[in-house]
């Protein structure tokens, strides 16, 4: 009886360890394979040159620039709106009903599929407001898509700032805003930075919304205004891998571009995770 229970336990633990190992190995196999195949494509020219010979040669400079603009543009929307929403929810809102509804809205916004965000961006920004397929339309769409990411991480970091900090500041005669601005925000900043890093990573990696609102297969010049179309790293990978007559000829460029995108997203996310780790440790 006792030994049977132990055998079941050992089998159960073995299954769980195996399952976990499969998940972790899948990640390493995926990343390892792409790095292994694409490493040879990386060169200085790959980062700094325009595509050549109908995309079969040259570099991905315009796609890097485009992704950078989208990251920058989307954060101009998502950071201020997201941080202010989180401050309102944690510091100001008194009516639990309103908080509940807003929070439900945020959760549902986080669950809207990115392709639906793409449809929304297309119909509102590209067509209805007449921005066209452009940096502006893409940034607005990605900025709104990223709102829940910023709101949640900001809220979380505001909540862990000890209540005694607030009381101390208020008792010294500071107003609520002064307390938030001078005491709470500086203490929550590393946590907020985590959310910003995660949202930047997402803006860099999202494809479906970008292809409806901002991206072009190929642009001969770098963008000069927010109303220009741009190339973007994820869309570049998608197009090279699926469309056109040179799918095999551009294979090494596809791997190379994938490495650049993965590296960018990983650096942003790991910075975010490290910041959060340190932030939690400091407050303990």
């Amino acid at each position, binding site marked *: 009886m006792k030994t049977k229970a132990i055998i079941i*336990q050992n089998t*159960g*633990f073995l299954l*769980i*360890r*195996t*399952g*976990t190992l499969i*998940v*972790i190995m899948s*990640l390493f196999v*995926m990343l390892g394979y*792409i790095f292994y*195949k694409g490493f040879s494509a990386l060169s200085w020219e790959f980062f700094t040159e325009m595509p050549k010979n109908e995309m079969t040669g040259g570099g991905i400079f315009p796609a890097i620039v485009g992704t950078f603009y989208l990251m920058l543009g989307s954060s101009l929307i998502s950071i201020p*709106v997201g941080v*202010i*929403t989180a401050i*309102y929810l944690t510091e*100001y809102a008194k009516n639990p009903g309103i908080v509940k509804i*807003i929070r*439900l*809205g945020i*959760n*549902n*916004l*986080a*669950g*809207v*599929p*990115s*392709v*639906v965000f*793409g*449809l*929304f961006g297309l*119909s*509102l920004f590209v*067509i*209805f407001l007449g921005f066209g397929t452009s940096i502006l339309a893409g940034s607005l769409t990605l900025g709104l898509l990223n*709102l829940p990411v910023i*709101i949640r991480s900001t809220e979380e970091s505001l909540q862990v700032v000890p209540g005694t900090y607030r009381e101390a500041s208020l008792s010294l005669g500071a*107003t609520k*805003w002064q307390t938030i601005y001078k005491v709470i925000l500086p203490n929550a900043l590393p946590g907020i930075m985590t959310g910003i890093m995660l949202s930047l*990573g997402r803006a860099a*990696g*999202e*494809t*479906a919304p970008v*292809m409806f609102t901002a991206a072009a297969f190929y642009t001969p010049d770098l963008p000069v205004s927010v109303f220009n179309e741009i190339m973007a790293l*994820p869309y570049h990978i*998608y197009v090279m*891998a*699926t469309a056109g007559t040179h799918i095999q000829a551009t294979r090494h460029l*596809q791997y190379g571009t994938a490495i650049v995108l*993965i590296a960018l*997203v*990983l650096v942003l*996310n*790991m910075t975010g*995770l490290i910041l959060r780790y340190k932030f939690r440790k400091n407050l303990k």
Partner: protein
Amino acid sequence: MNDEKIKIRLKRRSIIFDILIEKFFFIIGLSSLLVLLTIMIFLIKEGLPLFKEISISDFIFGQEWYPTSGNPRFGILPLIISSLYITIIASLIAIPLSLSVAIYISELAGSTLREIVKPVVEIIASIPSVIVGFFGMVVVAPFLMTHFNIDSGLNLLNASLMLAFMAIPTIASISEDAISSVPMSLKEASYALGANRWQTIIHVTIPASLSGIWTAIILGVSRVIGETMIVLMVAGGAAVIPTSIFSPVRPLTSNIAAEMAEASVGGTHYRALFAIGIILFVITFLFNIIADYLSNKYKFKAS
């Protein structure tokens, strides 16, 4: 005297400023609701007029999707069934693996391994879907082709595998939160009754965190339904009702992404794609409401 007046005036000014700030923050705070509402309005505005041309039942139960032929037909049943199959198979793969990870992190791993496995799972969550799709195309597809002797590796199975990978971090991390929040006292009571660790996990810890695990599964499944780039790249793209696990399929999301560029603004095709968007929005919205309800209802109060 004069000093006092200035002080009072300054104080008053900062109080007024505070009130203005609060009003302003309230308005901004409503923005996510406003965005959600605007998404609904624009989906309806662009998608709903479709049903003046085609009846809802012809749209949903029609078996032929030929949007660009001379006699166009807009039946999305094959797309719905594709989405359904992919979601079911991906969930069957993702749920056991995710729960393994969640139980491993919360119950089995020592503190060092936990600090390694947890961030690794979060890294998976951050991998862009276009990368996962790319890997499915260049590695998994040829692998399936040679090992199962099929014409194309871009099919239902490939898409389900890649989507499962995508869903694992969502299900694993939310389940892990739920499992970790089960009070120690419950487990201790179980140990005191002579149960071993496995019996305690299966009969006490998991049942106690079941509502959290359901929340995790629902959110994970909702992500699978809405994921676009992976299915666009590896599902094969045939708008027919799949007959085997190796059939090429065309789920709802990839259909929108694949055809939006060729649909002329305001045309029937364009409206049909937005109508598919409405369906996706409604499904994921319902899933999120259920998840929200579950997570609020049976949560252990953090001690």
